[in-house]
């Protein structure tokens, strides 16, 4: 008899086999994190019913089984290894195994050099990810699969990590995209993630085996893999049990199963995990806490049937919920509504409005204001009077509550917003970056995964004695921390408390980056639905060491603030433009999705058409589908830079054809190298502007999935160039950049400096093309000629030193001219913006942030808000070298500091920093830039970008910035008057 036990992250599997390897018994069950109890129970069940005598060869496998196996002295088999053992035995001839589990994704190459690949610690779980997405769509996993079978199209969803994907999916839901299409897109995202993250260039061919829960249960997922890989994969019998069977095959030591169960029981009793102090030391402390918070209430008045005084309505269409507040002229609340948006907020808002109309025949609506993710949609659909960016709505509400509020933190379903208030205006905004979102809905998803309702789950934690310490990073990391804690025997109570504390730590240390409570202010208002959770509220107070105000309408503050905003805007006696009873009754909404096709961006548009024929277009990067006119780009230095680079056309060259990838530093150095090689008699071509397609084509050869997106794009460019039949591809390694005299050194960052090495080592297509990636220093023009002469001699014959000298002179001149043009155009844009009274935004990044695939059209977005956009390198020469509190040693970043410094001297100029996800250098530059700006009395705004394509959060951030700037200006004007 052989027994194999596979303890995974969400399920537990067990097989009993006889000596002829026939399965006598098997089971596949969710363990809801009761790993020890469940394992113990299974072992007892088998000992009693399926294993005569209770003794069998036994081993344990699975990601959650390792520590457990050690603690009870049973051999552990690494799960991928177990899979391999089982596959070799049961399905000989298998070439590749793709196994997706609760949180792990694995690819096993069995033939032509065995290799195993597992997902990196950042990639998030796939099964858990699908579950999370299904929850978001309000479907079960089965329903999602069924829905996906009816899909007509797929959307692009960031496949890098679950949290990112979520921020892609949520807006699609909010925009009213079809659930069927979203479902299919989610499966496709899993496929892309698996292939990009794990195959890393190694082709998946031959007999492919699909194993694990998600692949067993979802036909669409299997089909998506088949289609993408161009194979006909097989999902064998017992596909869920391969690991358990492998463990059984592997087992060579006999155990008394009941005795192992006893040992498990004992281990469970000895808890050992990292814990922190309890939330409440006593029942009394809890009562005092409750009493204190019960005082923060908003006055309410009855909303009678005959109510006829003017009312103001605020609608907050958030990421997962819709909230509505009706209040009177004195800000007293008449009516509130709070409900999940079920994927489409419009019918719900309609329903609530109808109910209000029906219940109050004499209703006089004075104003309706919408806010939140669905602000535009709700405003257009129901003809609301005003729309207000959610940050301003929240501030308005908090200020009404606590006039001297100096800090607001709002933790909602998916986003976290914090603002600091100085002198009555928002002085700083912190929004969670795509990587640490999750927050409220994360708690909810977790609660559900563990089999609890979120409220019940949170309550469990209040009196936990030893809350688990889960750290303060991305929620994906938390998943595995929880796994570990469970393994170490943490109770559900302690996990619940630990999760609440983590949410708070994330907010404080990750989003706000505060190091002391004093830094945040003394009058703090906390809001957002997540703060109804008393464990989170308590954890926040404890972590910050201050008592805070949580209004009783914590979850409605956006809607309440919107209503207040409307009241402030509407003149007395006004009647709202809201749809009246009749038009509301006849209201319809039709949603369709189409490709724009008006330019190369080819945006995925979502078009909502309402009963009165009005349409709302979303998903567009520019106003062309709305206004029919193309953006001229005249207020956008990014556009100008693109034009300059794309203006270099290849000319015929007798010496051959050289290609250069339009990525990373070539976005700045192309004029230099183009001129250099053109002068030498080469035809010089570059790869096209990056695109999604280009990226996907190259993604298979990316060896490090945590490198920044601009670097990963390089693989697509190389792939493209390699297909052109060129004489050579030129992309040199460059430790140093040009010394512009702004810092203590003039390095490139390690990725920009040496990425050609990675391409050479990982792109098989380079084997057929000459790849010149020597180390070159353009920072020493005098040495450059001699060094370059030597390098060229390695690849080409007959190029004289004199020619190199001339080409080099021309190249340096062209580069200087290029930079001068940028500065001149920057000045022109500044001048014309000033003449027109526009704001000037320094969109500061690195040269490659000009790439539209990298910046996702943020430059255009800013100009659509009416501002002018210039670059950091157009103004960095306007300040003298100055001391920074960090080592100022990278050329590109020296420009950033200089630009920030210059901004502080210009009243109409503000800086927005673009940061690529995974840019380690920016962990240092962002803090420094923030400090430079704040010292000069400026707001700091950071936009973190990755392959993620949704601009929703970016838009909020920019609108908040503009709102805060407007408010500052207004204040200044009032003070002057």
């Amino acid at each position: 008899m052989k027994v194999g036990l596979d303890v995974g992250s969400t399920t537990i599997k067990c097989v009993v086999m006889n000596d002829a390897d026939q399965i006598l018994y098997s089971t596949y069950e969710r363990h809801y994190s009761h790993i020890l109890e469940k394992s113990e129970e299974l072992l007892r069940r088998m000992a009693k019913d399926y294993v005569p005598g209770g003794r069998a060869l036994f081993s344990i496998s699975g990601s959650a089984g390792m520590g457990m196996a050690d603690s009870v002295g049973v051999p552990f088999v690494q799960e991928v290894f177990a899979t391999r053992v089982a596959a070799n035995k049961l399905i000989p001839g298998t070439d590749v195994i793709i196994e997706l589990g609760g949180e792990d994704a694995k690819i096993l190459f069995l033939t032509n050099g065995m290799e195993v690949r597992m997902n990196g610690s950042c990639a998030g779980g796939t099964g858990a990810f699908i579950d999370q997405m299904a929850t978001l769509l309000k479907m079960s996993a089965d329903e999602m699969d069924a829905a996906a079978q009816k899909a007509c199209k797929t959307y692009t969803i960031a496949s890098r990590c679950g949290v990112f994907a979520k921020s892609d999916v949520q807006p699609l839901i909010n925009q009213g995209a079809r659930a069927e299409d979203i479902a299919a897109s989610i499966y496709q995202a899993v496929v892309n993630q698996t292939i990009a993250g794990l195959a890393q260039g190694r082709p998946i061919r031959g007999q492919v085996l699909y194993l694990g829960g998600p692949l067993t249960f979802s036909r669409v997922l299997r089909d998506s893999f088949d289609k993408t890989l161009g194979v006909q994969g097989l999902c064998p019998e017992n596909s869920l049990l391969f690991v358990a069977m492998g463990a059984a095959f592997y087992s060579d030591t006999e155990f008394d199963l009941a005795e192992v169960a006893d040992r498990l029981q004992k281990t469970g009793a000895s808890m050992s995990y990292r814990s922190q102090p309890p939330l409440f030391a006593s029942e009394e402390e809890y009562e005092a806490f409750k009493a204190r918070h019960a005082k923060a209430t908003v006055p309410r008045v009855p909303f009678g049937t005959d109510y006829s005084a003017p009312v103001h309505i605020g609608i907050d269409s958030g990421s997962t919920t819709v909230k509505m507040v009706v209040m009177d002229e004195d800000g007293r609340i008449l009516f509130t509504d709070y409900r999940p948006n079920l994927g489409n907020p419009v019918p719900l808002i309609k329903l609530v409005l109808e109910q209000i109309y029906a219940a109050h025949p004499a209703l006089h609506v004075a104003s309706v204001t919408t806010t939140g993710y669905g602000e535009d949609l709700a405003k257009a659909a129901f003809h609301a009077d005003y729309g207000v960016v959610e940050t301003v709505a929240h501030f308005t509400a908090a200020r009404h509550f606590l006039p001297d509020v100096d800090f607001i933190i709002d933790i909602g379903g998916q986003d976290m917003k914090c603002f600091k208030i100085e002198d009555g205006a928002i002085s700083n905004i912190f929004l969670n970056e795509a990587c640490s979102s999750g927050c409220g809905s994360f708690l909810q998803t977790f609660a559900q995964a563990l089999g609890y309702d979120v409220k019940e789950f949170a309550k469990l934690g209040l009196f936990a004695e030893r809350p688990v310490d889960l750290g303060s990073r991305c929620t994906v990391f938390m998943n595995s921390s929880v796994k570990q804690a469970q393994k170490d025997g943490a109770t559900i109570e302690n996990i619940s408390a630990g999760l609440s504390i983590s949410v708070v730590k994330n907010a404080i240390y990750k989003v706000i980056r505060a190091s002391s409570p004093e830094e945040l202010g003394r009058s703090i208002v906390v809001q957002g639905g997540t703060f109804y959770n008393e464990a989170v509220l308590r954890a926040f107070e404890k972590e910050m060491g201050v008592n805070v105000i949580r209004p009783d309408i914590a979850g409605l503050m956006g809607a309440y603030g919107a209503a207040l905003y409307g009241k402030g805007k509407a003149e007395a006696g006004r009647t709202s433009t809201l749809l009246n009873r009749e038009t509301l009754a006849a209201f319809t909404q039709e949603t369709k999705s189409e490709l724009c096709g008006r330019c190369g961006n080819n945006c995925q548009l979502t078009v909502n058409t309402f009963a009165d024929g009005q349409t709302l277009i979303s998903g567009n990067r520019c106003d062309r589908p709305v206004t029919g006119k193309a953006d001229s780009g005249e207020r956008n230095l990014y556009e100008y830079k693109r034009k300059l680079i794309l203006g270099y056309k290849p000319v015929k060259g007798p010496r051959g054809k050289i290609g250069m990838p339009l990525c990373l530093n070539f976005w700045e150095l192309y004029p230099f190298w183009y001129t250099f090689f053109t002068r030498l008699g080469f035809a010089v071509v570059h790869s096209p502007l990056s695109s999604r397609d280009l990226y996907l084509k190259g993604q298979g050869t990316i060896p490090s999935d945590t490198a920044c997106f601009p670097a990963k794009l390089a693989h697509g460019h190389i792939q493209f160039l390699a297909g052109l039949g060129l004489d050579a591809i030129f992309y040199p390694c460059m430790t140093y950049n040009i010394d512009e005299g702004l810092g203590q050194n003039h390095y490139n960052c390690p990725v920009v400096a040496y990425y050609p090495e990675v391409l050479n080592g990982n792109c098989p297509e380079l084997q057929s093309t000459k790849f010149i990636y020597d180390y070159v220093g353009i920072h020493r023009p005098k040495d450059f000629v001699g060094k370059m002469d030597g390098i060229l001699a390695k690849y080409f014959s007959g190029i004289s030193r004199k020619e190199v000298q001339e080409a080099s002179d021309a190249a340096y001149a062209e580069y200087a001219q290029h930079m001068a043009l940028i500065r001149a155009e920057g000045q022109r844009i500044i001048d014309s913006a000033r003449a027109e009274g526009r704001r000037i935004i320094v969109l500061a990044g690195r040269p490659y942030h000009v790439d539209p695939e990298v910046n996702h059209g943020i430059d255009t977005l800013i100009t659509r808000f009416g501002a002018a956009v210039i670059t950091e390198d157009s103004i960095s020469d306007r300040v003298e070298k100055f001391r920074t509190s960090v080592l100022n040693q990278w050329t590109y970043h020296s420009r950033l500091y200089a630009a920030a410094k210059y901004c502080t001297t210009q009243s109409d100029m503000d800086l927005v920093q673009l940061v690529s996800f995974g840019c380690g250098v920016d962990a240092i530059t962002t803090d420094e830039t923030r400090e430079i700006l704040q010292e000069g009395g400026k707001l700091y705004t950071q936009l973190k970008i990755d392959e993620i394509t949704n601009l929703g959060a970016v838009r909020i951030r920019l609108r908040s910035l503009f709102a805060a700037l407007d408010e500052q200006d207004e204040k200044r004007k009032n003070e002057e008057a």
Partner: protein
Amino acid sequence: MEFTYPRFTPDMKKTHKLLIPNMAPVQFRILAAAMEHEGYQVELLGNCGSQVAEQGLKYVHNDTCYPALLVIGQFLDALNSGKYDLDHTALIITQTGGGCRASNYIFLLRKALHKAGYGNIPVLSLNFSGLEKDSSLPMTVPFARMLLAAIYYGDLLVSLKAQTMPYEVHGGDAAAMQDKWLNVICDKVRAGKGYSDREMKAAMPKIAADFAAIPVRRTPKVKVGVVGEIYVKYSPLGNNDLEKFLATQDCEVNLPGLMGFVQYCAYNFSETARLYGGSFFEMHESAVILKFIAGMEKTIIKALRDNGYHAPLSFEELTKLPDGVIGMGDKMGEGWLLTAEMIELVRAGYENIICAQPFGCLPNHICGKGMINKIRELYPQSNITPIDYDPSATRVNQENRIKLMLAVARERLASPSTPAPESTEETPAEVGAQTANV
């Protein structure tokens, strides 16, 4: 932004205690002794635990690399402990001066100290790049020689213990021997002895012979090499006690020496001039330093070889390995050295390699993870797994990955004739037999 920070003035040597972050425990103990001989009062920090990372997270940008969080967290945790007279405490930190983020640690440390209310604590920089002229550890030739000797003694002890312990008949023999010699060497160094060429030539073979005398049973074991970002490679705090974990997995571990990094830094100086141009001094300085070290290198290699131990290649040999894989111009972080070490390990039979780095480590995208495919292509027997370290990356995930690598390694150990097994050719029965041996 700029704020003022205190300098470490020469008179503080007498009045201040210098705290040293613990990176490579064995080497750093001897280095600390060398500093004591030089007249400094030092303490090698041993504090660890979750509060170290917590302090780091609190005062350093969370996306900064893990070593910065840990080093700075360890300092702050020590200062918070109440064990030190804060008016007479100073900190010392190394600074490589390359294009990687690590050159910024000292600035981040000062920023963190400032934020945490320790703005009065001076920080001393240990660097060879001429950075921090007013706050760097003053260097003399004898002192430099003593530091180099300290590193080599440390490297020797680490290597000897690693090659003995897995095979020792009486558990604990090798560790005890290492302890014994560590004490002897520290005492000598503190007294200003033991670091001359003559003394090293006398001591090193004796040490090696002592280890060789430990009773062992040499059975084939999985041989694992560890390379990576320097801090997480060596520091048990940074790598979740990786060496200890590997020991429990019945492996022999090869942690390439710390001196390699010193030589690498020295080498790059002239290599940079060679690649991009530079003065006569720049062109030749590396050779002078490397020659200075080469004498000691011969002694350690000979001591190991003569006593039947595996010895690392000389640095000169090492510089030949990356040819065709990575350029010698890659000098940020561990740069080409990391790639060279992986190749050296594979060729020396340590084909199972853990490439350890902080999550998001920039240089390792290139010289670590970026080179694995290439190395695998050239040496199909290599079995390399990259492991990321991070304040929240859990040990279970890391160990799981390592176990997977080890499972493959054990299988190969059991059937050495097929370095890259072709599973299609195996019959199920053979597989069963093979795995049963594992």
